């Protein structure tokens, strides 16, 4: 049986049902990267006032790195498909 996103949203119960984000799961990596960046830099930085800037830099670097890795792997798959 197929459900629309709106129907799945109506069935959602906090903590009892998963969030209906099957089509957008990859966007959930963004807050995860943000959390990792903030905690990592809050541990690493000597002064807490350095944390926002340092965390923003590493957050962007992680996202760009993942996008680059995704693009390289996609290109590799396309090349392998042509062979």
């Amino acid at each position, binding site marked *: 049986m197929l459900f629309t996103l709106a129907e799945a949203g109506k069935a959602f119960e*906090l*903590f*009892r*049902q*998963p*969030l209906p*984000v*099957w089509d957008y*799961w990859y966007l*959930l*990596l963004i*807050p*995860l990267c943000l*959390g*990792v960046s*903030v*905690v*990592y830099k*809050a*541990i690493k930085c*000597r002064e*807490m006032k350095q*944390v926002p800037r340092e965390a923003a830099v590493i957050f962007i670097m992680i996202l760009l790195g993942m996008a680059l890795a995704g693009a390289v792997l996609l290109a590799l798959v396309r090349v392998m498909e042509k062979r």
Partner: protein
Amino acid sequence: MPPPPLVALAGWVLPGLGYWLIGQRLRGFVIGVSILLLYLAGLIIGGMHVIDAPTGLTMPLIFAKPWFIGQVLAGPVTLGCSYMANNWGTYIDPGTLRQMTGVALSHSRVNEIGVLYTAVAGMLNLMAIIDCSYRASNEGAR
């Protein structure tokens, strides 16, 4: 300065509390809130049953659910969530069509991402525990 084992234990009981005990309150607040938000996000994304505890304490049973090792590092909240996942309400099991006690297990990407969020939160807390107990043994310095 409290002894490092006490600081480490406090950091496990409540993320960020170890830093609070050694006087680094802003650092403790930022780390604690970030870790708990990641953990909460994991529970919201995948449902309570992303916390899937081993059914026993033997090595094969523990290694059958390796993500739980990361999740339990986030603190006793994981043990509470595991209890809730198995005892909170009822659901109909789609395989057997029987009424089961607890929260249904989610599947696919949402389950994987919920597990990832909670396990990463636990592993970040391990880094914080090691750092705050090291700072406690070195009078707050890195």
